[in-house]
Every structure is written in structure tokens, then in C-alpha cells.
């Protein structure tokens, strides 16, 4: 399948604003990601994996430099248009207010509904298929508070699927999943990258899974950010350090 640039970072400083001063966590980042890429992001806790993912979808501001999504700066997008380009799975917990698993998945189709949030037949079909693909059909009418951590995780992933975006960002999606579900998830993400030509970025501490399924690895340390192919991982000094000698 044809590969084209979908995410470009040009000399970008990433971080957050606190009391109007910039707190930069990742500096002068230059990266390019293509459609069909399945990229694993590795790095120790607090190194800036979540910061990178949140900056890519506009949840955090680009402090300087540029992030281009399909040739257009993130900050220039209408939110509703950006919602059709990038879906994100975060680590935060939500719940309450009678929210069911189904409601959360349905929220993924929100960018495609009218201003009264009315779901048409085609919206419902997409929601239904996202629920089926992630295997949460039996639990879709449960309240979020009643779901196990793993099922909750799958629900949020289904929401991201229902958003039907060419780019998917996932922040430690495998953290709470059981062994089989972890492999199911990575197989699914790999299939989405291969067959639907999506660009999938996933941060994870499950290094063996990343090595097994991803096409490239983004290795982040305090000193450097490098994009390497999976075959280079074993000889990469930073990756070996993150693996602590166990890989």
C-alpha cells in the first residue's frame, strides 16, 4: 500500500504551560511518521511518552516548532476535523453519571453526528462493529464503574476505533490486559496498520510485544529521541538500557 507522510514534527518543543511559563519536556523533536506505520514508543517512566502523544492530538500545546497532521499544523484544525483525523486512548479513568461501555464507544462517532448528537443508522453500525472487534459485546450495557480494568481499557480502544481515524494514538493500552488480550490487541493494531493503512503509535512497557508486532520503535531517553527499525533494537544502547539487560 502507498505510504505517505501523516505526522511531521519540525523542531518541536513539547510540554505544558504552567502559570504562563513553558515547561518543556521534549526538546527540538524532528520526526516523520507514515501511513501504515505501527510504531512502539519505549522509554522509562516520566520521560515524555504521554506528553508526545497528547501533543500530537492537540491536548497539549506545541511550545515551539511545528506539528503537521496531513500537512496542516495541529493548532490550525477545527476540533471536530481533528477528531476525524486522530483518536487517542489515554490512561485516565472515567465513569459515573450512568455512563455505560456502549455510551463511551458511541462517543467515538460524535464527530460525525449533528449538533443534537443524533445517531443515524450508519453511525450505529460503526459503533456496533467497534464493539464486536474489541470483544466487549457481552459487557456493553454495563456501567463503567462495574467494568474490570481490562474491559475498561478495551472499551476506550473501541471508542478510538469507532472514531474511524487514519491516526491512532494509544498510551499504555496493554497495562491492564490479560496475556491473551495483550496479544489480541497488538494483532488488531497490526492489522489496522497493514490492512487499513492507519498510522498507529503505541506506548508500552511490554517490550517483547513491541518487538514482536511493531514495524518501528521510537526510543526516548532524557538525552535523545530516535526512530529505529525493530531489527536495530538489539544493538541500540538506549533500548538495551530501558530493557535493563533482560531483553
Amino acid at each position, binding site marked *: 500500500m502507498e505510504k505517505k507522510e501523516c505526522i511531521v514534527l519540525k523542531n518541536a518543543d513539547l510540554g505544558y504551560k504552567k502559570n504562563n511559563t513553558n515547561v518543556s519536556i521534549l526538546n527540538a523533536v524532528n520526526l516523520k511518521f507514515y501511513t501504515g506505520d505501527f510504531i512502539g514508543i519505549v522509554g522509562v517512566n516520566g520521560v515524555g511518552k504521554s506528553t508526545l502523544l*497528547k501533543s500530537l*492530538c*492537540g*491536548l497539549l500545546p506545541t511550545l515551539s516548532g511545528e506539528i503537521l497532521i496531513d500537512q496542516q499544523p495541529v493548532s490550525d484544525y477545527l*476540533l*471536530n*476535523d*481533528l*477528531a*476525524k483525523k*486522530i*483518536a*487517542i486512548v*489515554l490512561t*485516565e479513568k*472515567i*465513569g*459515573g*453519571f*450512568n*455512563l*455505560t461501555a456502549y*455510551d*463511551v464507544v458511541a*462517543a*467515538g462517532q*460524535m*464527530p460525525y*453526528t449533528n*449538533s*443534537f*448528537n443524533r445517531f443515524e443508522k450508519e453511525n450505529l453500525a460503526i459503533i456496533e462493529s467497534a464493539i464486536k472487534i474489541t470483544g466487549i459485546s457481552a459487557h456493553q450495557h454495563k456501567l463503567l*464503574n462495574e467494568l474490570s480494568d481490562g474491559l475498561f481499557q478495551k472499551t476506550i480502544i473501541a*471508542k478510538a476505533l469507532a*472514531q474511524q481515524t487514519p491516526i491512532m494514538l494509544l498510551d499504555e493500552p496493554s497495562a491492564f490486559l490479560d496475556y491473551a488480550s495483550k496479544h489480541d490487541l497488538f494483532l488488531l493494531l497490526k492489522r489496522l496498520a497493514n490492512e487499513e493503512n492507519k498510522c498507529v503509535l503505541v506506548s508500552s512497557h511490554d517490550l517483547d510485544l513491541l518487538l514482536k508486532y511493531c514495524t518501528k520503535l521510537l526510543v526516548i531517553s532524557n538525552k535523545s529521541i530516535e526512530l529505529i527499525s525493530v531489527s536495530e533494537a538489539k544493538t541500540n544502547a538506549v533500548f538495551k538500557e530501558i530493557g535493563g539487560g533482560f531483553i
Partner: protein
Amino acid sequence: MKENNTIKFLLLIILLVISCLLSLFYGGSESIHLNDVFSDNFIFWHLRLPKTITAIIAGCTLSAAGLILQIIFRNPLAGPYVLGISSGASLMVAISILAGGTLHLFSDLFIGKTFIVLSAITGSFLITLLILAISKKVNSNIVLLLIGLMLSQICGAIQTALEYFSDANSLKSFVIWGMGSLSNTTNFDLMIYFPLALIFLLALLFFIKPLNALLLGENYAQNVGINFRSNRFYLILISSVLTGLTTAFCGPIAFIGIAVPILSRMIFKSSKQHLHIISCLLLGSILLLLSDALANSAIKTISLPINMITTFIGAPMVIYLMFKNKSW
């Protein structure tokens, strides 16, 4: 599931009609007979009917404001009264009555009323913004509630100080108004109260999608295309206007704003907010109408303060929720 909701709504509408009749015919020391309605009965047309309409508007506005606040704070224990927003509105009204008295603003009825309404809205808006700023520093629902309580104590203390310096006439109107009452609204007041309340309640219909998205929290709302900050601002504005309006005409009314959305979520097991907006309007009206009928008919010849009744309904509910620690 859907048919079930239709039945529930039908029941609520029937209940609304019944409570309207109860409030109209038993909502005062004098009971009204059906033939009074068709004659030019002063009590019915100038006391009872405006009071019943006021109860409906107050019930709708406070419940809608409570619903908005609970979603914005993502806290089922939020409400205009418990967060001190009603007190903020009260304080501004107290200040404006005092200032208006000295500035002779009240010689013109319309200007006087408008002045009071605007100050009540300003008061509730400022307190909401303050609470919002505080809520970013604290994570605990309970702490937020305590801060709201303290804010309303502070507003109350300032109000007491103002009362101390006011003349006998203003003092009397302060105290009566501060107890909360549905019967101070005249037919003239309703001509201001009703259209403004209606406009801002209708405005809420354009925020169904943001309200649904806000349930998912700031980040996910943004990721599905909803501008969190701007929507939150407009929603706070709407809830402030709704709370301020009602506080200006009825005084601070306790616990309706917190109890009704909770009740609505208990009855309708859904997270769809268009459903809850409608049910909050119905439930709020019903609850306040029944409270009014109860306040006036519980003890013959004495009409109890409406806040006493609403507190008896609302406060146990809040306590129950705190113990249950389940997010409705």
C-alpha cells in the same frame, strides 16, 4: 428500554398536572373552589396562580442549573445551593437593595427589578468562577463541598453585616426574601422572570452534544471534537443566569438544584443528557409544587418556609450519596 422511558415520562407529566392542581387549590391558607376560577377571584388570579407559575419556573431553572454544574464539575454532589452560588447571588442582591435604596433606583419598578436581577446573576457567576478555580486545586468531592459551604457562610456573614446597617424597611425585605419564598412574585415580575428563564432554558438545547461529551472528561471531550473551555464557559454562564434569576425573585431555594438531577439519574438509567434535561424540568417543577402545597397545608393557618421542606427532601439525599459513594 425506550418504551419504558415513554411510560416514565407520561407518569411524570400526570404527576406534574396533579401537583399543579394541589399547589393551586391547597397552596395557601384559603382553599379555592372550582367556581372561584371562573369568577374574578383575587386570591386565585393574583396570589395562587403567580405562585404556582413561579414554583414551576423556579423548579425548572434550579434543576437545570444543578444538572449543568454536576456535569461541569463531574461531581454528583454539585448544585447551586450547596456550592454557595445561591448565596453569592443573595449577597449581591442584598448589596444592590442597600445601594439601590440610597441611589433611589427603586422609584421605577422596572429599573429596580432589572437591577436586582442583574446583580443576582453577577453574584452567581462570580462564585461559580471562584469555585471552578478552586476545584482545579482540589481533587476531592467532599473538600469541594466544604469549600462551597464556607463560601456561603462568608457570603451570609457579609449579608448579616449589611443588614445591621440597613433601615427597618430594607431589613424586613432582606430577611423575608432571604428565607426563600415563592409568593413574592407578582404578575408583573413574571413578565420579566418567565421570558428570561425560557430563553436560557431553550439555549440549553444547543448544548446537548457538549453536555454528553463533557461526561467523558476534558481530554476525551476534546478528542471527540468538543471545545472544552468555550463550552464550559457558556454552560457556566447559562447556569449562573438560571440560578441568579430565581434567586432574585424567590431568594435562595435550598437543595432543589442538587436533588433533582440525582433523582433524574436514579429514575432514568441513561447517560443521554437530552433525556435528563427534560426530566429535570419535570421533576424540578413537581418537587417544588409539592413542597409548596405541603408547606401551606401541613399546619392549618400557618405557611411554613419553603426552604424547610426542600431541605428535608434534599439534605438526606446528599448524606445518603456521601455514604453510598456511588457516582450517580
